[in-house]
């Protein structure tokens, strides 16, 4: 049934685009246009070489691909933007253990992804639950954790955005979602200035979560309120490494 729908929708699109006949479509295995169908008259068919032909289009308009901030300016910008969207920002160099211990000291149990440097939790006296493949915490267990501590893949200064990529230090998506308190470590080397630089560093095939401040809503009179379903407290530790 859906196969028929597929053929028909693709045929409709071809017709809508004025490609001849309207009955031609492309299959998912052979990605070409309708060259083999009725002899094409150059005037009436949009010849399309497929997606590759237009690869450069978007980049041509001349928007910035790199920002101008570097060094301490870059870090300051990130801090400014994080604070603006109500994240708490801390700085550490070398070992963030002490800062982490201070931030999660009130919790009895926290969860960390398996790849997180375990020495960072050395100063914490409560339980540290390690979430790892085959030994994932259940949703209820996650709900019982006071906090989650993770690293991050990239931070975009201009927008105050931290990206988690499902790696062994960012963790599986659920662990940074269910606990109400997220402590996230951003290494200074992972900070970029603007969005294009951030996107360039990411792998599309990973589960990606962009986080800009704690969860929020503007649904009531378009007034921004922080803290809804995601973690209501976001602590960011900027780590000189």
């Amino acid at each position, binding site marked *: 049934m859906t196969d028929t729908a597929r053929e028909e929708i693709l045929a*409709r699109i071809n*017709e809508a685009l004025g490609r001849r006949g309207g009955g031609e*479509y492309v299959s998912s295995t052979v990605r070409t246009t309708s060259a083999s169908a009725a002899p094409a008259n150059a005037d009436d068919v949009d010849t399309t070489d*497929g997606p590759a032909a237009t690869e450069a289009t978007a980049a041509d308009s001349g928007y910035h691909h790199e920002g101008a901030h570097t060094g301490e300016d870059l870090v300051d910008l990130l801090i400014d933007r994080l604070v603006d969207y109500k994240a708490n920002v801390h700085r550490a160099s070398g070992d963030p253990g002490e800062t982490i211990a201070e931030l999660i000291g009130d919790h009895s149990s926290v969860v960390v992804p398996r790849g997180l440097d375990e020495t960072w939790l050395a100063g914490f006296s409560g339980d540290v639950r390690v979430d790892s493949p085959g030994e994932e915490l259940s*949703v209820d267990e996650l709900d019982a954790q006071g906090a989650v501590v993770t690293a991050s893949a990239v931070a975009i200064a201009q927008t105050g955005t931290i990206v988690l990529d499902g790696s062994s230090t960012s963790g599986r*998506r659920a662990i940074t979602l269910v606990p109400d308190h997220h402590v996230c470590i951003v290494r200074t080397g992972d900070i970029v200035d603007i969005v*294009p630089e951030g996107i360039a560093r990411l792998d599309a095939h*990973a589960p990606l979560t962009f986080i800009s401040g704690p969860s929020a809503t503007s649904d009531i009179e378009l007034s921004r309120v922080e803290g809804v379903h995601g973690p209501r407290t976001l602590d960011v530790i900027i780590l000189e490494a």
Partner: protein
Amino acid sequence: MTFLGMPLLRSKHAHSDLPGGQGNIVEAEAFPEASQQHLSNQQLRNNIGHATSTIRSKRAEVVSELDDWERLRDAGEATKNEVMENLPEYLAQFEAAFTAAGGIIHWARDADEANAIVTELVEDNAPVLESGRREVIKVKSMATQEIGLNEHLEAEGIDAFETDLAELIVQLGDDKPSHILVPAIHRNRDEIREIFMDKMPDAGQLTNEPAVLAEAARKHLRHKFLTTKVAISGANFGIAETGTLGVVESEGNGRMCLTLPETLITVMGIEKLLPRFADLEVFLQLLPRSSTGERMNPYTSFWTGKFEGDGPQNVHLVLLDNGRTRALADEHGRTALNCIRCSACMNVCPVYERTGGHAYGSTYPGPIGAILSPLLTGVEDEANGSLPYASSLCGACYDVCPVKINIPEILVHLRGEDVKANHSPVSSQLDAALTGASWMMSDGKRMTAAEKGLPLAHKVTGGEQINDLPGIAGAWTSSRDIPALPEKSFRQLWAEEEADGSDEKGQR
């Protein structure tokens, strides 16, 4: 088959052959009538006026932070045009990549087909609860709103819980969305408090503070998030190159739905594709700033099929046509499909600000709705032909559109389509007046002759201003006066001056 020596023209009228969309995209009552009751609602005017003026200034502020904003808009426009021109290829590419990553794709020609597919998937994957019904959680999605999915599921014994705060307000209030970003924009905090107190039995005593109301929603939905097996979402973007889907949100309800359930069903219009993952560098700047007026929204999630050990393992996508191909066939209107649903156009629209979204009768209100709804259905469908006239053509929408959809131009185009489609033998007074004016204004001499009547008209009206006119002109004089007609037109004065050889009026 081609006729000898005669190249086929691009199918200018192909859209008339393609089926229009169905569902919540038709206006049952013409806009002028539908808007009347809303115009006199003081509460509505206050709520929408306050909300839209707030978001306008937020948007203006964050947009002004980027010195390459116009170039980003150009890139956004070019990229979406590229998608539409190569849509079959990009869909095929997307399908291959999404499938390779373990996702399952379904194609739906219209609302009925999409609803049936989703129903079957839910029945296969969500358990029947003690109540005898099944449950799903939902992330806000325009596509599912458009096809009336919730109503359909309900009839099939499936309760769909909206988890976006505004959608929750709408659902609990037994109401309809009136805005694509903030569906409950027509409600203020006091009304929301009342709805929550009434419909959330365990909420207890609430104040009208937004923070308190948000907290109530968190408690209300928490258990559902942690236990429901099937989630339904929309998608803001589908990346052809990689088969990646993305949802842009704020509250974390999206992350909950996309991460915790075992089965994820996404419904996405076929036009939502972007060619490359790298294109997000443009769209993740355009969308949040245009939409919520933030540099970046709190959460954005991207997933590509399924990930072992992380998130839903049963991942489906329904690709929806429902009139999109018909819109695509309209070469003067197809850029409406470039819309990324930011809602900036409705936030700046002086008409929307006064009528609210319900007056548009469609899931898509405001300026974009006034073009998109009739493009999806055809201007002939019910009262959708009245929507292109629901604009003063002030152009504020075009100025803020992040992908530069020339909404005013498409509105005018669709008025032309409506004129073509309207074969009513009895022409209205306005039609007659315009026909007469066309005849007169097609020739300066006729205009001169007509204006010779001015002294007479001036006399008939006693040189007085005009406060009351009959017929269609009465629509004007119902709330406006008209100046007295001058005794002579400029043309006559000019001719007299030329004849005199002097130019007393014109001299310094």
